[in-house]
């Protein structure tokens, strides 16, 4: 799937992946898609919770060898 911006949050731990995601979304227009890569297993639950509370849409979550890839559409 296409995305408009990419955030590399690999190696970072809670709460940094969420804080960086928030910041990156701030640089996008409504409807644009952010791709986030993370190695923090806690970020799977946290990204869902972030999306639910902020109204941004978590389009997909994928895991590949301990790395998590999220696609989020800005509200």
């Amino acid at each position: 799937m296409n995305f408009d911006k990419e955030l590399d949050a690999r190696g970072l731990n809670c709460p940094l992946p969420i804080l960086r995601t928030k910041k990156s979304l701030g640089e996008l227009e409504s409807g644009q898609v952010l791709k986030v890569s993370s190695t923090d297993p806690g970020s799977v639950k946290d990204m869902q919770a972030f999306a639910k509370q902020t109204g941004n849409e978590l389009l997909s979550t994928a895991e590949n060898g301990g790395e998590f890839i999220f696609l989020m559409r800005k509200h």
Partner: protein
Amino acid sequence: METKKMALIATKGTLDWAYPPFILASTAAALGYEVQIFFTFYGLQLLKKDLSNLKVSPLGNPGMPMKMPFGPKWFKGINWNIPNAVQSLVPGYENIATGLMKQTIANNGVATIPDLRDLCQEAEVKMIACQMTVELFGFDHSDFIGDIEYGGAATFFEFAGETDICLFI
């Protein structure tokens, strides 16, 4: 949707206990909360311009694992069960423990306290220093970062009374 609000009281002045208020405040701000932190007693240490004096002490803290942040895996896995009596006698023990803790923090990709505090300030988390304890401990306003306010219990309640989440840390 009305903006949610969170108030925290930060009362601890050690490196380990500096994390909960700044993690919760920065995350809440990222979720759209309006956040205030009231720093009182030892929590005032978290508002100092120089945060390098924050330390962690394993002395009298049986809950703290004592593991080395370097070396082969088997070595890192050892929990060094050092008796309190020994800890209290070794000069600089706290400094060594703090150095090891900072290395562990870096190894795990956990943010530093100065970074988390900066993130809170960028996110417009409002920070209030308890004026009474500033005077009690003989601090001066010039010891602390700018962009903070000074107030007392009534100042805290003015915001805390309107919040959705209110925590004492």
